[in-house]
């Protein structure tokens, strides 16, 4: 098939980093999508969503099994990447759960935070493959650039530095995520470049 051969070439040319671009290009070319017959609700909310906490919560059916999805959606929509007390209370009320059980869940899972974090949440992988391929050096570089320790937030509120277990990117270790973006094959130069780029965009 001509198209797929063509896109395969583009793919090979640009490499994995641009696979998102390829998907879009492909979709425009030969994937005509009619309007969905069903109401679409996205599990991953957009960082820049203009909705109140209440509106976000109400997108979900009021059942306990939606708790983690709701907490993700609410936390993602907060510029400081955390769950406010008010959000937890609203969630508890909506799902008819006790406040303490919602707190218990929020505290149990490492992706949730009850404290404000930076706008850009850095998760550096410290699992075996990344350690083997010098994640420690990347940690030192991040700390030097940001002037903070692990679990801390820069004074301008831009970055928080955290550790993560294996991000499933081991083929190009060492790796980190910043919000929902993955950065692989890190070295000193690349790490610095990524931080600069985010700083410029703010």
């Amino acid at each position, binding site marked *: 098939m001509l198209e797929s051969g063509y896109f395969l070439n583009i793919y090979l040319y640009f490499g994995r980093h641009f696979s998102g671009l390829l998907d879009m290009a492909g979709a425009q070319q030969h994937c005509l999508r009619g309007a969905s017959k069903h109401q679409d609700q996205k599990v*991953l909310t957009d960082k820049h969503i203009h909705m109140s906490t209440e509106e976000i919560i109400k997108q979900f059916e009021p059942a306990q099994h939606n*708790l983690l999805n709701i907490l993700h959606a609410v936390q993602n929509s907060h510029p400081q990447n955390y769950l406010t007390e008010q959000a937890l209370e609203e969630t508890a009320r909506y799902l008819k759960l006790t406040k303490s059980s919602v707190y218990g869940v929020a505290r149990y899972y490492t992706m949730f935070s009850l404290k404000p974090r930076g706008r850009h949440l850095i998760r550096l992988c410290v699992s075996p493959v990344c350690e083997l391929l010098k994640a420690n050096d990347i940690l030192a570089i991040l700390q030097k650039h940001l002037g903070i320790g692990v679990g801390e937030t820069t004074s301008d509120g831009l970055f928080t530095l955290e550790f993560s277990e294996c991000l499933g990117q*081991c083929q190009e270790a060492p790796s980190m995520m910043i919000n929902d973006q993955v950065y692989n094959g890190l070295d000193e130069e690349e790490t610095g470049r990524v931080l600069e780029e985010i700083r410029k965009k703010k």
Partner: protein
Amino acid sequence: MEEKKILLKNVGVIDPGCIDDAIRAGGYEGLKKALKMAPAQVIDELERSGLRGRGGAGFPTGMKQKFTSDSCLKCPQRYVVVNADEGEPGTFKDRVIMEKDPHLYLEGTIIAAFAIQATKGYIYIRGEYHESIRKTEQAIRDARNKGFLGKNILGSGFDFDVEIKLGAGSYLCGEELTMLESLEGKRGHPRIKPPFPAEKGAFGMPTLVNNVETLANLPRIIEHGSEWYRTIGTERSPGTKIFTISGQVAKPGYYELPMGVTLQELIDLAGGMRNGRAFKAALLGGAAGTFVDASMLNERMTYDNLREKGATLGSGAVIVLAEGDNVSDILYNCLRFFKHESCGKCVPCRVGTAQLVNKAGQLRNGHSGNTTLLQQMVREAEIMAGTSLCPLGQSPILPLESFSRYFKELQ
């Protein structure tokens, strides 16, 4: 040794965001065929195929379906739960399937649901896998529009739909019973086994829990038949396996190979050792896996053969270390991982994982009397394995015991 792409044959060929592309490449043919069969026939076919669970334990998939389908016939509901929580260090095979050909495992999920007559399914994806989540979400939406999901699928009278549930950073939630707790909106504390999910799973109903890669096999088996499937791989481990190889090889990545390849063949395929360094060790199956040394390079990697040799296949993760790397650093890291992921509910695991990390710290710093230290650690991990509530506490013995077998001299 060449790659044998049956699951990954469309990777890089189709646009994963486009269902028409997937269909043109043969997507949903297995489902169409399954829907013309009786559910019990589908289960029979899978049993005959010999497919074993790719989530790590290698449990026969057809048999699990049969248990789930036969249990609690009075129950008003049964569920399929897809284990897409991929958290075993060194493993990224499910991510590849979800990002590059999400319709494949979605089709497999629908076939599994039809086989056990489940009308509702959940896909539990780890929260960090944003791209997998997006791709799966798109795939579900498009499959609904095409009538592969929803009411009366392709006019067969069978109803089924799925929902995505997000994990939130807990490795333990990859364990099937813990996953069900999490999926119900609770903390990820393990449930006591039995009852198994097949008897009492999600919301107390019979539930089939399968790994993404396991389910990705179903369309192919149904479409081409179990006889064809059995021509690939070995007698007791038929089919292919997606290995994810990382560390000190020249071309780390994912490779789909017939079951029964050797570690040496896999390393060769991955371009050999990085910078021509000498092989020293590999960690097979991730943190809950086993170390091997060069004496294992030519052993066939199947569930049974590796088990007989005291090793594991697990998720198919292969982390390669070269001469000059410190194996005890990696052991330390695995034990640190377990300490971090222990839920703290039972004492042997909570205290044991912390003690093991302390001792591993001494070990890697080259303390004197290391053989005794190592023996102590193995003994402690054995006690943990015997007394912990769930499989996480039973895991540290795997890397530890294998490490002590191969590398005690190195200390």
